């Protein structure tokens, strides 16, 4: 069968297992299969964003699959949420590397990966709270812990929304985005709630074929005035910068 890129072969049904697993002595358990499916799905979700433009349908389906697996694992009790501090990029790298797909069954039994994954999830939330300097954040403070796939949507949402701005505003985003779009960190550090509001603004703006600069100012400033979060103070400065650009152009 045609296999694209990923070295790991997948298990298809219980009856085929002996045939497909030449290197592994033990018959893989349902948990192992489920874990490998989860890993594969997460890699797919990440790969989504490195391609030209994410296919929303595919992303939704993969994310739903991930959610399904997570729910089942939670019910099983194999999903342990461990409250550890953020450990930086180490767990991110671990997730991306293909090593995770080739973990031996021994590691699985020891449950090594699971804490790593949950740590990763927590890392991301930690990043969210701290990293607001490069985004136009709004009044809403960091939400309750979100799932991995929710951030996938925000990333896509971000990208889709930007497509609706007029070209005169692209300078603003360039000043805000100082990371290369291909870095893995970029996938998870850039987004926050402000883009929901941005989307509402943009949806309204989409119907206006001609938008004066004043309108842009109003829509930009309204989210900013509502903020009271101390995290957003630096953002207000950023927002002034944006307003300056608008006025100049």
């Amino acid at each position, binding site marked *: 069968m045609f296999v694209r890129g990923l070295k790991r072969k997948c298990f298809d049904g219980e009856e085929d297992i002996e045939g497909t697993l030449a290197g592994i002595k033990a018959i893989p358990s349902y948990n192992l299969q489920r874990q490998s499916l989860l890993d594969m799905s997460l890699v797919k979700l990440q790969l989504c964003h490195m391609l*030209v*433009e994410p296919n*929303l349908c595919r992303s939704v389906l993969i*994310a739903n699959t991930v959610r399904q697996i997570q729910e089942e694992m939670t019910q099983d009790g194999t999903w342990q949420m461990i409250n550890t501090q953020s450990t930086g990029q180490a767990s991110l790298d671990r997730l991306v590397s293909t090593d995770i797909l080739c973990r031996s069954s021994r590691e699985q039994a020891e449950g090594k990966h699971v804490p790593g994954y949950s740590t990763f999830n927590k890392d991301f939330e930690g990043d969210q709270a701290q990293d607001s300097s490069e985004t136009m954040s709004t009044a809403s403070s960091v939400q309750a812990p979100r799932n991995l796939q929710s951030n996938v949507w925000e990333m*896509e949402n971000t990208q889709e929304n930007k497509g609706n701005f007029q070209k005169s505003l692209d300078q603003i985003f360039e000043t805000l985005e100082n990371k290369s779009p291909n870095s893995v960190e970029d996938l998870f550090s850039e987004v926050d709630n402000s883009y929901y509001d941005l989307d509402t603004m943009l949806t309204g703006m989409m119907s206006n074929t001609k938008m004066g600069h004043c309108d842009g100012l109003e829509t930009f400033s309204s989210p900013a005035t509502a903020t009271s979060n101390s995290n957003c103070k630096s953002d207000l400065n950023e927002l002034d910068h944006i307003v300056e650009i608008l006025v100049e152009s």
Partner: protein
Amino acid sequence: ADIISTVEFNYSGDLLATGDKGGRVVIFQREQENKSRPHSRGEYNVYSTFQSHEPEFDYLKSLEIEEKINKIRWLPQQNAAHFLLSTNDKTIKLWKISERDKRAEGYNLKDEDGRLRDPFRITALRVPILKPMDLMVEASPRRIFANAHTYHINSISVNSDHETYLSADDLRINLWHLEITDRSFNIVDIKPANMEELTEVITAAEFHPHHCNVFVYSSSKGTIRLCDMRSSALCDRHSKFFEEPEDPSSRSFFSEIISSISDVQFSHSGRYMMTRDYLSVKVWDLNMENRPVETYQVHEYLRSKLCSLYENDCIFDKFECCWNGSDSAIMTGSYNNFFRMFDRNTRRDITLEASRESSKPRAILKPRKVCTGGKRKKDEISVDSLDFNKKILHTAWHPMENIIAVAATNNLYIFQDKIN
């Protein structure tokens, strides 16, 4: 030649349009039957080729908008010219295809090569004469419907009123008037306020063939919603909801993905609709919402291979399906350049292959069979030998006759009934 991304017959079946990944549209025309050989059927030859969409660059996202033609829909013919709608991910265009077989000669104010004549040299008036010329087919864009879709357009459908049409992307459906390009009405919006909550997208949409107020849209969760535009301006609440209850014994992590509907087509009669999900085709009676009236297995042997198909992304392939003119048969594609046809009355089905080796001109296609297990018989092909790169996603059936068009990657095959 580029990968064909859509195939569509016009209302009379005389014209067949294909769109490809490179943004080109190629239209084939059926030749008039030769009187001296009454038994030879008309062949399809190239009638017109034009570049419909060009790649665009979205500066804000630093992403290219693909020029691939996602769908073509013909308008009913009202005069000598032909009109079709073609769309890529973001922009829909109305094209006029017209013939020119005469040209005027003998103008007063200009020469034959178009240069203006010196007024002093004009001493007499003459009436220009129309002279025949080689047939020229011109395609010109008449309307461009842009900037109305944030997400990728997956469907367009012309209304039976012949004045409006809908365009659907992953989360929204817009209603357009063919004459108006700067405005469209949003009639369905399933985008959640919080994108975190997004779990379902729109996969296809179509207007009812006779009732201009009715349309359906399918989702990635295997459901179909029928909406009546008379009930409210925003059709977020459906009039009918079609969903087959899940079989708990066949539940797996892939259940949702394979239930995602890739195509929905009303029957010509308007009484039924057909949906294509990954493994099957289902025929629904519009009066019965709780289950389809017929289910046809396209390639059930793939059910045990779903994990591999998920790994290589084939599980996300979007197959289309189509009815024949009398709604008695349906057709859909599969892998290995196989396509399947089902007779709804006799319940017989056939698997055929669209490939150069098996398609000598005028030769009859041999039925194919996939061996699902056990001993492989002669001429059968085993599941593991199937080529998953050769997928037939797009097929079309002539509206009146038994002529089918099958797109196999970058080749177009046209088959017809054998002549008795």
